[in-house]
């Protein structure tokens, strides 16, 4: 009888012993993320959360669960296992490889700095979480109707060293050019619209230079950014003519004052025997 009682008691104890880890694990809290620092008995994560380390905290390998020679330091990833009773980290599983951020909180764990923010910061209100996912962004640029059909329109951006031919757009109808870029949400850059050089940049309706356009890729599935060009800096009047004002004579008649035409006298500077060859070297801009 006594022996049976002893065996029964041992069996119950064995079952309890087997069950204990399960019970204990059910009460523990796990927190996984990137380390910032371990100092003065606290471990800090890049989320801004900090947890107190137990005096006998175990350092284990994140993958194998065995003791590791890694020491916790900035940029490592770690899983902190907390004891809810003491609110201290009893185990720190370390790895240099990126692991997903994960939290398993018990309601009574208050050791994290995340719970200390109680004062509202007005400058942060209204922000939307940005994930960096790829967003197809359409840039649709409406140009002056007199822009030559074969002219090429570009975007110059601050992320391409302001190369005036950085992003080429394609004409899609009489007045519009278009391109689609795949950009990460949260991408922010500024751009100008050009016709391929800094001498031919979009200007405002009053002919004055405008500030670069700031563009932000929102957290959405697709996005369209429409831009209207009022005029070009090298053609503020929007005149499509072959002969610009002052650019006389016309292309078809470079010599309306032909010798002997009688319209105007001969030049005193015209040398006898005809004119010399064209001046060497680069010609002046027209």
């Amino acid at each position, binding site marked *: 009888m006594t022996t049976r009682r002893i065996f029964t008691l041992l069996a119950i104890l064995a079952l309890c012993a087997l069950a204990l880890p399960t019970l204990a694990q059910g009460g523990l809290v796990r927190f996984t993320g990137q380390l910032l620092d371990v100092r003065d008995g606290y471990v800090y994560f890049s989320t801004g959360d900090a947890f107190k380390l137990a005096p006998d905290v175990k350092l284990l390998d994140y993958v194998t669960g065995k003791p590791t020679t890694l020491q916790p330091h900035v940029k490592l990833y770690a899983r902190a296992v907390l004891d809810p009773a003491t609110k201290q980290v009893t185990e720190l599983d370390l790895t240099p490889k990126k692991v997903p951020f994960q939290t398993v909180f018990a309601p009574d764990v208050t050791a994290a700095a995340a719970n*200390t923010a109680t004062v509202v910061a007005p400058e942060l209100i209204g922000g939307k979480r940005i994930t960096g996912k790829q967003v197809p962004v359409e840039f649709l640029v409406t140009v002056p109707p*007199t822009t030559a*059909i074969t002219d090429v329109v570009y975007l110059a951006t*601050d992320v391409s060293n302001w*190369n005036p031919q950085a992003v080429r757009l394609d*004409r899609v109808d009489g007045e519009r050019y278009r391109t689609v870029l795949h950009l990460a949400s949260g991408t922010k850059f500024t751009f100008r619209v050009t016709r391929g050089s800094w001498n031919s940049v979009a200007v405002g309706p009053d002919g004055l230079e405008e500030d670069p356009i*700031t563009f932000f890729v929102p957290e959405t599935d697709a996005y369209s950014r429409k831009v209207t060009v009022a005029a070009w800096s090298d053609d*503020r009047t929007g005149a499509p003519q072959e002969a610009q004002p002052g650019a006389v004579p016309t292309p078809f008649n470079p010599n309306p004052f032909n010798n002997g035409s009688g319209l105007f006298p001969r030049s005193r500077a015209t*040398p006898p025997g005809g004119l010399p060859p064209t001046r060497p070297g680069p010609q002046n801009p027209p």
Partner: protein
Amino acid sequence: MRGRQVDFFYDRYEMTADGDVRVQLSDGTVIRGDTFAMDLKLNRYIVAGNVHVDGKTVHLTGAALAGYLDLDKTYFLPETTGAPQRWTFFGSDWTDEHPGRAQPGDTFYLPDLTGLRPYIRAQRVLIVPRDVATFTNLSIAPLGLSVPLPRYVFVFSANSHYFENAFAGGRFDVGIPLLGGEHSLSALHVRNDPIDGTYLAFDQHFVWDKDYVVFAIDPLTQPQKQINLIGYKRWSPKFESRIFAQETIDAQEPSVTHDLGLFGEPANAAAFGELDLNAGLRHSGLSFVRDNYYGYLLGYYHPPDDAAFDPDPPYDPRWREHPTTTTLSWTEAETRAFGRYAPLLFRLRSGVGDAHDVYGEGGFPNEQPGPEDAFYHYLGGTFYTSPIKVGRYSFSTSYDRQLEWFNTPHLLDEGDLRFALGRPFDKQHINAFLSYDVQTLDDKWGALQDEAYPAPFGNTICNPGYGCYSGQDAFVGLATMRTWSISGVWSPSSAFTLNVIAQRRYDFPAPVPGPPYGYGRSPEDVTADVRIRLAPNILLDLSRTYSFGFGGNRWNPGGTFALLP
């Protein structure tokens, strides 16, 4: 900022540093830590691991510090013996830590740069937020090949004036910024073009928020050089000025083969200057443009009577003149014709001007003299529709007309009528459009029409190798140019785009190919442009035009490389 190793990732605009990182802020505060990361575009940085902050009024230790420059806030995880805290400092005021204040969700996140190779590796960098980063003792690895450099300036400013210059177009242009700061940038350029080959150029920028000055020498290492100066000043929100001055010098004597160098006496020199003044008016703009041409800057050779052409050194008496053109123009902003819902719009324009010495002696293409001054005024306007959607089609039309009167018995009457129809084919990833354009250019001289437009080379032009073209007498100054254009853009993926445009022209007077008397445009040509993305930030852009043999031209090669975001 300095550290044992400073890395810059060009395609992410991320800068990192590891090992004994030391950051000195502009107020003298020094932040030390184990690692550093800065997103140049988001304009925020973080120092993490054993962080010490030391300044005139602050001595802190902690786990991490994050500076959000756009918010003018510094977030800090202080060393603690009690409950962990988060502090927020306002501006450079380190006296009040504002504990418990809400912080951005990713305040202390370190960037994940796994698998990326740094573009620049250095030991020290000076960062001017939102503008430039100057690296010292660095190696640069644009294509995986490490090149040591003593200094490199990386400009990431949203101010485009850092890069505006007057370099002529080239096949490639690689800028190497050497010196720079908040308001200046000095750069060498390695350039290549079909005329000068590969050469060095230099430009110096002085940049402010709205204003800038650019000085450039291009090429720096070839006998023929252009020295450029651009100055832009925004005097008020509604008034701006711009000057452009250019001197072209030929530093090589025709009789010798050696280069006389940058500072040697040139054998020839010419200049061009332009002044632009633009004023914004209510719903319109006023523009004044003055162009000055200096065909010859070296004085006159003997004999004093410059009517004689001296062949050695060559001197053309036409160069002695300094032609100028002056134009004052007014341009209306886009205006709706019949209320906001009608798709009919228009813009009017007018102006007055003077062209001085542009005929004959000034070096303009025509080689005969004319009147010293040609005064003119003009009136014009563009009438157009915004694109009208009809089903899958987009239709637009425009008509532009301009009349220009000169003080000579002379009127230029120009018109341009255009119809365009576009349509996307979504399933095929194609955008197509068709347009028809009619331009007229009537150069009217009244009773003197026949004298102004004699057939200069007779009724028949014969160009050796290109045949004879008769009927030249038929053209008396009234030209008409009609153009059909058809285009298709195929973009099956984000990595590939093919753009083809074909044009057929019906011009009067009909073009005549080949030298010496040829003129006009190719009757038909096709241009194809292919863009292939080779890497996330490298795009190959190739373009060629085929002219079907007009004037002996068939393939016109061209191609560019571009770095994209």
